[in-house]
């Protein structure tokens, strides 16, 4: 394959990545939110693998593979089991309605392109537009965490943030040292499991997983 084709393919994947993170914000159901997260991670793994291939940094292939295995398969499966056992079918409840959060998300994309698009402060080693994409993914994660009511969507927002940081590490430095990268994957996996356990505990104690029911502690 010639490099021109691959680089334009990477650009295409970057745009798809942005669309899936918009999808996560726009999705009215928890299940579709999880599916969008899985797609997001899948695209991330593909981008990482292509960056590794074009720039001959073979050590990046291991994180790419781990992303594929953990974030597109294992973690979404864990989430699907959780929502099946919790019996959630209802729509995602949000403090701001979906059109408005999409508007906010668009503004955040503009903001991140404005801040980092010129590549002055933070130069990326591969494709240039990935830096603002990574920053806006982190912003999107924060948006999901702050506007959603369900405890489980907060965890999804956290994971989206982590995806953004991963993309940032890949584009700025071709990923962290392998030991650190594997450790981060381990932490993410254990974190998801522990938060999952707590989601069940919240359900038992509060008879629902809306975080705005949790108002016992003040002052």
């Amino acid at each position, binding site marked *: 394959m010639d490099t021109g084709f691959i680089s334009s393919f990477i650009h295409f994947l970057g745009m798809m990545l942005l669309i899936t993170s918009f999808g996560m914000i726009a999705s009215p159901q928890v299940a579709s939110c999880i599916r969008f997260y899985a797609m997001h991670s899948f695209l991330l793994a593909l981008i990482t693998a292509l960056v590794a291939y074009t720039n001959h940094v073979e050590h990046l292939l291991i994180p790419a593979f781990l992303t594929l295995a953990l974030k597109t398969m294992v973690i979404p499966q864990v989430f699907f089991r959780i929502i099946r056992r919790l019996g959630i079918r209802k729509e995602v409840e949000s403090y701001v309605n979906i059109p408005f959060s999409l508007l906010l998300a668009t503004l955040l994309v503009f903001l991140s392109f404005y801040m980092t698009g010129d590549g002055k402060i933070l130069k990326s080693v591969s494709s240039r537009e990935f830096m603002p994409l990574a920053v806006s993914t982190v912003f999107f994660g924060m948006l999901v965490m702050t506007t959603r009511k369900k405890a489980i969507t907060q965890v999804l927002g956290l994971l989206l943030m982590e995806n953004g940081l991963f993309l940032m590490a890949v584009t700025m430095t071709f990923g962290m040292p392998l030991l650190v990268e594997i450790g981060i994957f381990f*932490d993410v996996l254990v974190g998801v499991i522990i938060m999952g356990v707590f989601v069940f505990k919240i359900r038992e104690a509060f008879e629902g997983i809306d975080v705005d029911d*949790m108002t016992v502690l003040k002052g």
Partner: protein
Amino acid sequence: MTILRLLFIPVFFGLVSLIPAPKQFTRFNFVLGALILAASSWLFVIHAHTKSRIFAFGENLMMDPLAALFVLLITSVGLLSAIYAAGYLFREGDAAISPLRLRRYAFFFHLFLFTMLLTVFSNNLGLMWIAIEGTTLASAFLVNVDDKKSSIEAAWKYLILCTVGIALALFGIILVYYSAISKMSGGERELLLNWTFLLDKSKSLDPQTIKLAFIFILVGYGTKAGLAPFHSWLPDAHSQAPSPVSALLSGVLLSCATYGILRFHILVQAATGSSFSGSLLVLFGLISVAVATPFILEQSDYKRLLAYSSVEHMGLAAVGFGFGGVWGTYGALLHIVNHAVTKSLLFYSSGHLLHHFQTKEIKKIEGIFRKNPFLGSVFFFAALAIAGMPPFSIFVSEFFILSAVFSAKRFVVCTILLFLLALIFAGFLRHAGQMTFGSPKEPHRPEKSFLMDSVLGLGMLLILVMGFYIPAPFHELIKEASLIVQGVAS
């Protein structure tokens, strides 16, 4: 004894505690593990030649005097908490906790100690990040031992807020790595996150990027260290956790996060040669003291009172580190040690109070002294000690920090600090006086526990002695550590 063997001890005892065995066995194993860990860490630090660095695991782990100081802190407070918990959580009677929960508690307790030790032993900054995230994950279950509504809420807030904070810190670490990798050849990739390596090459790091990285690290680890305005998880988690865990969270977990900030503070100082990171530390330190003050004055729950006091003391330590110099740095390190001992003593006595009075409200408690003179005097004097009354140890380190601020000729900062400290002192005196004196309402007399009382006595002795006299080897250790923080030692 090596670093790896020391790290192995808590993992081993944590796993052994999971064995389904009678309660007495779990309890024995639980305390034995903490005892062996504390004893071997003291032996290790004493035998290690204090001035040099000891490496392990391919330079990813490292112990220098700064790390050694924190290792002693973690294992010693860990031992005290374990002994106290052996009396507090393993009690018999109506309030007894089921053996399964106790086994799980013992497991996570040792795992928590392990992750904190890994944090301070990490030379690889990425590994340190993983370890700090590990402390959150290991202690979330310790915060929620009883599955009450309020403890689940506290644990959830703790998990989510600290994980978000830590995610921001990860961005800071990526920036540090980026600034290192863009200036150096690709052959040393695996070394590039090592603190010692970065410090040696600090002049070739890009100052702008490092400064940006420090802001993210400060916000990220500052969340974990309880610096205001990122402290909102702290009072909830500290007040809902069982007392021995609160002591660990407040005394050593906050200190470990501060240790993470310190390592980056040293790097920024070396790379930029400016007081950029110091000024930020002073700013956030002052905000923390100022934010904590009204909550200490108007507090209705004594465990939350102690939690806000932790915010205040972490702020003071940050001010000390920020001003730096011989006095500021030495004082701040000593302050972290003294705060750990005094605050854990107060949290242990809050465990006694909860046991005796069955309430966390300050207003509902009167006449501790009449009811139990030993507990009353320990609580009252420890409360005065934490507010900064001489002759207790906190006074000495606060004095060092304030004189550092004074000798830097920052009189406005000094005045603000003194004013806030006076307010906090008044608040503590009022609350502690109201709780200690007067006549008790209900004559409820729970059985005494020798283990729990002896921990209180030992803690009281420590804060009194440390107020007058710092043992020479310990003084040397803090001095060496403060040289590292100042960037003087190579």
